[in-house]
């Protein structure tokens, strides 16, 4: 565009692009910066993120699984305990990665590394930065999901070709969480407030039918769990892993569709609060 040639004009005319105050259409620059930085410094962190769900799967699935034996799968047929919890661990890892990247990571780069401060003094708008960071988070999520699904396959935990769809489904789940996460971060000012995020995430991980079926709870508690997003992700991936679907499957997909549509609206509305104080 006109930025390359040095002009002596001192007068600009607004180009009238939609969202011109927030967006310059240059998400690519944010993404390539992220990849370059990852290549030179962060790759070890990435490896550790891959191992976390694998370690859970090995300890709980094999260790605890020896005591539990088999449990009833989505269609009622018996399933090994490891095969039962593996999709849930994948959904949780998609959630954790997306939330971490869109909350703690954004908070740190905003307030401490001052990375966004530098970016936002260029032609980039806050929406370029937000979308670029979400894309990077999803790319990372895609790598993790692929790796974890490969581990599941190696352990013989995938019994249906539908299981491969867990990979895009994880990215879909991650997108739902990431698009909300940044909006939520815009309300946070201190580290103490950031801790509330963990306060929500940990119980959600433990109680969303991750390690045992929802039916162990009394009905009112079941309702609470079913309102939470992670449960829908767990159920969706669990159904995909065995290739058994019902009307509920559509409900789970619908839940994330709504998240994916509402999240960016919230985040875009809060971008000024997040980046332009």
């Amino acid at each position, binding site marked *: 565009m006109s930025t390359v040639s040095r002009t002596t004009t001192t007068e600009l005319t*607004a180009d009238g692009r939609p969202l011109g105050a927030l967006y310059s259409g240059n998400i690519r620059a944010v993404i390539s910066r992220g990849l370059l930085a990852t290549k030179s410094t962060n790759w070890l962190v990435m490896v550790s993120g891959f191992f976390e769900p694998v370690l859970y799967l090995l300890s709980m699935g094999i260790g605890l699984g020896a005591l539990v034996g088999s449990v009833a799968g989505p269609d009622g047929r018996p399933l090994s305990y490891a095969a039962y919890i593996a999709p849930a661990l994948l959904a949780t890892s998609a959630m954790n990665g997306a939330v971490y990247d869109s909350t703690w990571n954004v908070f740190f780069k905003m307030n401490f590394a001052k990375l966004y401060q530098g970016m*936002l003094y260029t032609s*980039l708008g806050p929406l370029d930065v937000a979308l670029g960071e979400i894309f990077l988070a999803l790319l990372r999520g895609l790598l993790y999901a692929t790796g974890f699904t490969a581990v599941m396959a190696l352990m013989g935990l995938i019994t249906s070709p539908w299981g491969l769809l867990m990979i895009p489904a994880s990215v879909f789940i991650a997108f739902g969480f990431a698009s909300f996460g940044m909006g939520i971060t815009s309300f946070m000012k201190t580290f103490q407030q950031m801790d509330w995020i963990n306060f929500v995430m940990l119980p959600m991980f433990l109680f969303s039918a991750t390690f045992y079926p929802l039916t162990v709870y009394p009905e009112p508690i079941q309702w609470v769990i079913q309102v939470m997003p992670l449960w829908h992700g767990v159920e969706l991936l669990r159904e995909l892993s065995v290739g058994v679907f019902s009307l509920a499957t559509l409900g789970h997909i619908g839940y994330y569709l709504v998240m994916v549509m509402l999240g960016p609206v919230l985040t875009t509305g809060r971008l000024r609060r997040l980046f332009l104080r």
Partner: protein
Amino acid sequence: MSQNVSLNAPHKFVISAHNLTKKYGDFTAVDDISFDVPAGESFGLLGPNGAGKSTTMRMIGGVSQRTSGTLTIMGLDPEQNGPQVRAHLGVVPQQDNLDEELRVRDNLIVYGRYFGLPMSYLNPKADELLAFAQLTEKAKSKVDDLSGGMKRRLTIARSLVNDPTILLLDEPTTGLDPQARHILWDRLFRLKEAGTTLILTTHYMDEAEQLCDRLVVVDKGRIMAEGSPAALIRQYSTREVLELRFGSARNTTVAAELQGIGERTETLPDRVLIYAHDGEAAMDSVSQRGLHPITSLIRRSSLEDVFLRLTGRSLID
């Protein structure tokens, strides 16, 4: 020259701020300030820490939203057209915010990519800027390994990657040793000669005198005075200043006995200042009254004196 331009051709202003105000809750950081900057001028905001200089800079860059007032940069509102306005700005923030995860040269390239500039332009540009900042040998170093002065030069080099029409410099030499400062000043002079509009905040009066065609003195978010450094000194101070030290215990009592010498006196904790057009003559009068300071010094008035006159306080607390 710049005054003529500003009178005859108002559309030549690259920055126009009118009644600009920024409040954070009850605190008013910038309080109803107005100024215009014509293209090619080197314009300074001089004031102590907390005067509202950085906030003003952030509003110009469109990364802080004003509470009220109008602001146009090259005819556009940076709040409405942030990305488009910033394509023509270079920004050197008060604290270096280099990308620590990237190497020195990559910092320049990646920053250029944020402006949407192509690699065919950026590769030679990065080398040119490294030479300009005297960092060619450090191209592959980690940012962390650079000295403070080098980081500052890299930040300035980075701000030039898009050939900005307007360069915003927030306290560009704070924390640098004298030699590093002079190298920086030299680089800024060259940019000024090349026609770049410089907007500079500083609390160093020598920096303001060296670099600014025109400046505003700001304190507590308000503009106290406006003019060229020489004009401000003429208007608010005398030609010379006689600095006397009588020892911190006696300065205040002696000050009373100095009344009537020079145009006026100013008593600071560590010294007494006598403002006079002829410093030597004032010194003679002091001796005639039988007063013998421990040290005495005659110097030319500076912007520091202007600030002291306007606010009753020193620039650096």
